[in-house]
């Protein structure tokens, strides 16, 4: 009788379980789950069920990220333009690869939207045009992909999944600002004035550089030019999107210059000067730029310096030097 009950129980539980789960790809059983550390104060990260973080996947992704073999002619790796010391950005004027696990729009003109896997697939297939015959003929990569994804043939899917796993570990949230919020650091008077300017409508930075990520991940025309570059219009074809670009994160902003989508400003001081007096009218300027009519927020020299001082509190030195994120070939 007990055997009958056990079989019934087992079958029943199987029914309950099978009736509720999604039909996602099961992770490779022999892999080791990777324990992702989410910075304090950040929300949980949504990770696709078919690409859970594993130690093997993250390590493979890190190797790929730094390997010029990813590019068809072996000339560039992700890390060529996304340099750790520059918050995974560089003077190539690319957006920093940080905290992307919470993003849904990628690239300045939001050419790719979706998951980190989607942007990494774009990088592999369209940007690098990776030669997978080359990867498949490399015994080390064959072995690493086998361990991480249990595949005998490497495709753009596995490569983008591995890169996405590593990119999800590039999380920066331990700046002086974060320590200030946690009561572990105090601002100087100048930094605190900058903090107040940032978070009130006098400076009015917070509407676009919002949340703990200092970006709203949205597209805006911030009044850079009277005849703006196309920006998001190139993607949507909607004239209302002309001149709109993604709000970049301001975390580690002191290390991610030059600034704006075309890298026209070399210093934070130039950026603050622009918002203070350099706004230009065009048809699609965002209504959040409410000082457009007067050319900007008209900050005094002291307040501009304070705003820059606050922006520098967003630097996370630990992240910029974290050896676990560094070039594994060195």
């Amino acid at each position: 009788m007990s055997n009958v009950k056990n079989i019934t129980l087992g079958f029943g539980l199987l029914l309950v379980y099978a009736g509720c789960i999604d039909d996602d790809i099961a992770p490779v059983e022999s892999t080791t789950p990777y324990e992702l550390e989410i910075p304090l104060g950040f929300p949980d990260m949504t990770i696709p069920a078919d690409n859970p973080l594993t130690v093997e996947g993250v390590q493979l992704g890190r190797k790929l990220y730094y390997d010029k073999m990813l590019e068809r002619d072996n000339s560039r790796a992700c890390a060529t333009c996304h340099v750790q010391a520059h918050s995974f950005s560089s003077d190539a004027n690319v957006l920093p690869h940080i905290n992307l696990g919470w993003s849904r729009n990628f690239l300045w003109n939001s050419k790719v939207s979706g998951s980190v896997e989607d942007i990494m697939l774009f990088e592999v297939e369209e940007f690098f045009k990776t030669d997978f015959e080359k990867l498949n003929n490399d015994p080390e990569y064959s072995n690493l992909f086998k361990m991480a994804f249990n595949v005998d043939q490497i495709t753009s899917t596995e490569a983008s999944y591995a890169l996405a796993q590593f990119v999800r570990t590039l999380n920066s949230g331990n700046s002086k600002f974060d320590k200030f919020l946690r009561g572990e650091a105090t601002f100087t008077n100048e930094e605190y004035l900058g903090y107040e300017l940032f978070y009130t409508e006098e400076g009015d930075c917070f509407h676009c550089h919002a949340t703990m990520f200092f970006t709203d991940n949205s597209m805006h025309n911030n009044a850079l030019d009277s005849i703006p570059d196309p920006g998001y219009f190139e993607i949507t074809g909607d004239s209302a999107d002309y001149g709109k670009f993604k709000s970049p994160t301001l975390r580690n902003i002191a290390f991610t210059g030059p600034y704006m989508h075309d890298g026209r400003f070399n210093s934070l001081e130039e950026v603050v000067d622009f918002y203070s007096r350099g706004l230009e009218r065009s048809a699609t300027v965002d209504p959040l730029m409410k000082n457009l009519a007067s050319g900007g927020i008209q900050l005094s020299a002291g307040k501009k310096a304070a705003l820059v001082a606050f922006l520098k509190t967003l630097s996370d030195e630990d992240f910029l030097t974290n050896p676990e994120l560094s070039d594994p070939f060195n």
Partner: protein
Amino acid sequence: MKASGFVMAVLVISLITGCEENIKVDTATAEVTMLFTHSVDGNKVQLDNLIYKNALNQDYSIKTIKYFISGVRFHRLDQPSVELNDIHFVDIRDTESLSYVFEQKIPQGAYTGISFVYGLSPEDNTSGRFTQPPESLMEWPEPMGGGYHYMKIEGEYLVNGSPSFFNFHAGMLDGVPYEIHIDLPNSAFTVSDNTLHLTLNMEIQNWFQNPTDWDFEYFRGAIMGNHEAQKTIQENGVDVFTVGISDGAL
């Protein structure tokens, strides 16, 4: 065998109730759907068009309308009212947000009226409550008291023929709550079907009048730190919303 039959029955019940997708059928309740519409002077709002005039004859346009509603409550005669716990975020440019099915159903029967909170009550308005966009992007900065914007209306107004932007942003300022507890006029109804459709209309012109005529040149573009402006919005907002009611399929 009786024991195994009992176990099987329990498991079948578990199977039926274990998945979110399963629907409980209850003919004594009604599912509440709310549609959100927006008008100026009674006509559907036309975004990005500088065609409106406020009570002071100032020209203005509307580009953005985003807001929270919460604490929707259905009042009954001689019975406790029914409150729905949902907080819903509306963005006029996000079509999906303009229709919302409340998680909780209401009993069928006669109701004397509907009330709700425009914005968020102080107990709902705590920093960190919303972790995902778009709601999280309504955050109200800590130096101004924290929590979330109740509403963002943005547009342009004309000053001596030249356009300027205004950000009609409302919220709890420095701990002073400015949400509005709204009793909707003409909102008595009887629901005898299993669906109830409400159409909540925001008459934007009313934000700018009664009792105080809003002067764009006086308040200008930025009002988040301005208690007088927040109080004016709160007082003007009492008659901004009206509701249309129908039960059964639309």
